[in-house]
């Protein structure tokens, strides 16, 4: 890393720009449930988080231009996503004992009486 040729002002301006971007995205996080994609808050929130993470990785963590480390990061994230895809997407999505299992049965019974917020009748599967 060449430490002698740093344009201090330019880099500092870069830091502030990213800060503004991140703050805006945080604000979006808060208004999103009332503004857009209201039926898939989870997805919207995670998308915002991914954009924020990308900004932090590329600019705050100086990943831009680091070919080798980007590849390694990509590989690690790929591994995590594969674990998710298999355990969540393939296995538990197809949970075969929804009706007879103790761990799922008791909760569906309990939450209708105990829920903090009233559950709209139109609720379908997630």
């Amino acid at each position, binding site marked *: 890393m060449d430490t002698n040729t740093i344009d201090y002002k330019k880099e500092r301006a870069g830091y502030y720009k990213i800060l503004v971007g991140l703050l805006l995205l945080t604000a979006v996080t808060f208004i999103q449930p009332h503004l857009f994609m209201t039926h898939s808050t*989870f997805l919207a929130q995670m998308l915002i988080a991914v954009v924020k993470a990308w900004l932090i990785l590329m600019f705050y*963590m100086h990943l831009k231009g680091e070919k080798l480390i980007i590849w390694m990061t990509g590989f690690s994230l790929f591994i995590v996503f594969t674990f998710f895809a298999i*355990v*969540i997407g393939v296995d538990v999505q197809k949970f075969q004992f929804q009706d007879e299992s103790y761990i799922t049965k008791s909760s569906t019974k309990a939450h209708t009486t105990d829920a903090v917020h009233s559950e709209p009748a139109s609720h379908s599967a997630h």
Partner: protein
Amino acid sequence: MSHEYIPEIATDRDGNEHEVQGWQGDFYGGKLGFWLFMFTEVLMFGAMFMVLSYYNTLHPQDFLDASASLNRVLGGTNTVILLVSALTMGLGLLKMRTGDVKGAKLMIWATILLATAFLVIKGFEWSAEYHHGIFLMHDQLLAESPLPFGQKLFFGMYFTMTGLHGFHILIGIGLMIWLLKRINAGKVSQDHHILYWNIALYWDIVHLIWVFVFPYYYMIGAGGVTGGH
């Protein structure tokens, strides 16, 4: 590292000289090593998120209900605090790289202050939850309480993950204090700032984890009031 090191030269058969990379003073190697360490953090929290979404899949409604009851104001404040602290950390590193040691130290102190503020707010949040009967080994989270499994698991993971994240913040504060000591001892300088660089990276990964922890816990149930999820 304290061992003196003069780069060696290897000569190939045509007489061309090639500089040998030693383990001493290897900036890129130090950075690479720290990135690799951060992957282990990603995998660790990744696995915890997997546990979380596993039970989210089994108990979708419980998760929304539990999430809706978290304090979004305190959580949001903490998000902003961490965001700003990432900036101060980055600016400090920038100052160090341009030779402004005093400015860099000031920025580290600012980061420590913000990190402490984060922990204090977290403490308020946890104690408020405790008074609502929601805490590990306490009242509603006990095995005999009628709270549905999904909510119990949500809160259990909430305390585990924010607790582990808070523990990382604590370690971060410790690292920054150590960094200040090293700067004062002259071991970290403009030309030799790998330690600073890596601690800044560490602080960013702590922030990065929060970027995902925050929406998954505080925000997924935010639309619950209007009925969407």
